[in-house]
């Protein structure tokens, strides 16, 4: 999964003033021709900075995102689900590994990124600051959060940075299985016993508001991203992704006899656009800045894992070894 709702820094015109205009023009021409930018190619500092930020956020989202579903591995009901849940969460950790490597090609080490994560300096997908109370919550995440991530990542896989787009292609292939797994689990709940139906509806009700914020703030309020779009760093606007997600998944939710907890949700047949209650963006900002139900817990878990594993990393350090960037 789990990329989505990236937070970009506002691009400042000044940032580009210091770049060599001829190199910048050639760089932009390459992107316009659909070429990929590779790690050792010339790139503007701003491009490098925004990409590190985006890939790093995505990688963090994978390892933090492994936590809410990970807590259900040991409680998954029956062999089939237990094995699938393990494999699914393992994939997410594997995605983090791929993505940290992709970000490392731009000059920031995995260690630095993990340090910034536990210090609260870098962000991760905001949805994982919400709890997975029941097995059904875990199913909703597997289905709908992964679905949202696919919408976002399929778009970004066409982006201009070679290592990131190649990582995303591999990730999307695995996500397709997660989506099937999540859907299958939700179908079993929604067509199961009254208790199971009640569990899955309650989980959907809890997760709908965070899901609606998954793609990030409405385009009306997003910081300017024209440069990032021109550079093919950001490939689709937040609202475009959100509309595509609603188009693909709301009918599937309704098909299962589940209801979406938004009385205003409907497709406007004239505009072809979904209308919905505007998500609470104040809450979104509050949570992303640290004040959500699980922020502290998620980071504490990560910090503990880092601290408890520190002796292993120290033991593995070879003083003669030199740091080498991973292959892109």
């Amino acid at each position, binding site marked *: 999964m789990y990329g989505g709702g990236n937070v970009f820094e506002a691009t400042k015109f000044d940032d580009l003033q210091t770049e060599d205009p001829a190199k910048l023009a050639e760089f932009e021409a390459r992107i316009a021709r659909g070429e990929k930018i590779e790690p050792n190619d010339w790139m503007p500092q701003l491009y490098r900075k925004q990409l590190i930020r985006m890939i790093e956020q995505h990688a963090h989202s994978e390892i933090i995102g492994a936590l809410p579903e990970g807590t259900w591995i040991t409680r998954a*009901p029956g*062999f089939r689900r*237990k094995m699938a849940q393990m494999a699914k969460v393992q994939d997410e*950790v594997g995605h983090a590994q791929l993505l940290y490597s992709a970000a490392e090609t731009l000059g920031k080490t995995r260690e630095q990124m993990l340090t910034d994560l536990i210090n609260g300096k870098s962000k991760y997908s905001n949805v994982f600051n919400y709890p997975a109370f029941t*097995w059904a919550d875990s199913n909703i995440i597997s289905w709908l959060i992964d679905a949202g991530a696919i919408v976002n990542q399929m778009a970004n896989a066409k982006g201009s940075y070679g290592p990131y787009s190649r990582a995303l292609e591999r990730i999307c292939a695995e996500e397709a299985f997660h989506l099937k797994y999540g859907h299958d689990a939700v179908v079993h709940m929604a067509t199961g016993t009254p208790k*199971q139906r009640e569990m899955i509806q309650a989980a959907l009700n809890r997760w709908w508001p965070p899901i609606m914020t998954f793609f990030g703030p409405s385009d009306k309020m997003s910081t300017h991203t024209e440069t990032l779009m021109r550079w093919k760093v950001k490939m689709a606007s937040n609202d475009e992704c959100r509309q595509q997600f609603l188009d693909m998944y709301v009918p599937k939710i309704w098909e299962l006899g589940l209801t979406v907890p938004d009385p205003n949700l409907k497709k406007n047949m004239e505009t072809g656009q979904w209308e919905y209650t505007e998500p609470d963006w104040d809450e979104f900002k509050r949570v992303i800045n640290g004040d959500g139900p699980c922020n502290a817990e998620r980071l504490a878990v990560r910090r503990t894992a880092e601290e408890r594993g520190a002796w292993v990393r120290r033991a593995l350090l070879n003083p003669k070894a030199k740091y080498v960037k991973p292959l892109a």
Partner: protein
Amino acid sequence: MNELAIKDLLYKLADDQLILGHRNSEWTGFGPILEEDIAFSSMAQDKIGHSLAFYTLLQELGEADPDTVAFTRNANQFHNSQLVELPNGEYDFSLIRHFLYDNAEIIRFEMLSQSSYEPIAKVATKLKGEVKYHVLHANTWIKNLGSSTEEAILRLQSSLNEAIPYALGMFEPSQYEQELIEAGVYAGEEAVKAEWLKRIQAVIEKTDLKLPDLATVEPKLGGRYGEHTEHLQPLLDEMAEVFKIDPTAEW
């Protein structure tokens, strides 16, 4: 062949793998490095898959279906060794346990792949290739960390001392031991233990670790007969938490 003897053996094999697989899976998201997080998760999936294969053989012998057997028994009905049910502790303990366990497991699988009891021979032949990688993983890490920093060596040594009595408990003979040996099902626990000792010694010799003098170690027995530490029942309760909401439901 005495069916009770075969069932007893199958329960031992299946329960060991289910419980250790469950423990390994608890590392998901918490590993000391991402690569180890992923490795423990892989082994967890293999172990749980292997336990399922053996529970399926039990079902063919008339026992309940694997989900019922795995998710509804109480601790005193489990035949796993106490070694596998102990909490993960720190990574050093999990790694030592994995090393001690899998070096025994591979020997059992090698022997069972030659078994006179064909259903077990088939499953063991099919799965031993996966266990081989678990052993390779354990031995590589023990060799690396076991001769690295003083801190790592101290940690591993203390975990080794702690785990050894439980590891010896893996070889507690079953009440059908003689029968199984005579029928050519496998060579029995004493034989597994003798070979295991050779193999773990060969690895430990390449490190700065020391194997405790086994003559002075009291093995922790009872696991094969349903006697467990206080750690198993809470693990089983957690495992069955959702399943028991409605055991007849399809999840």
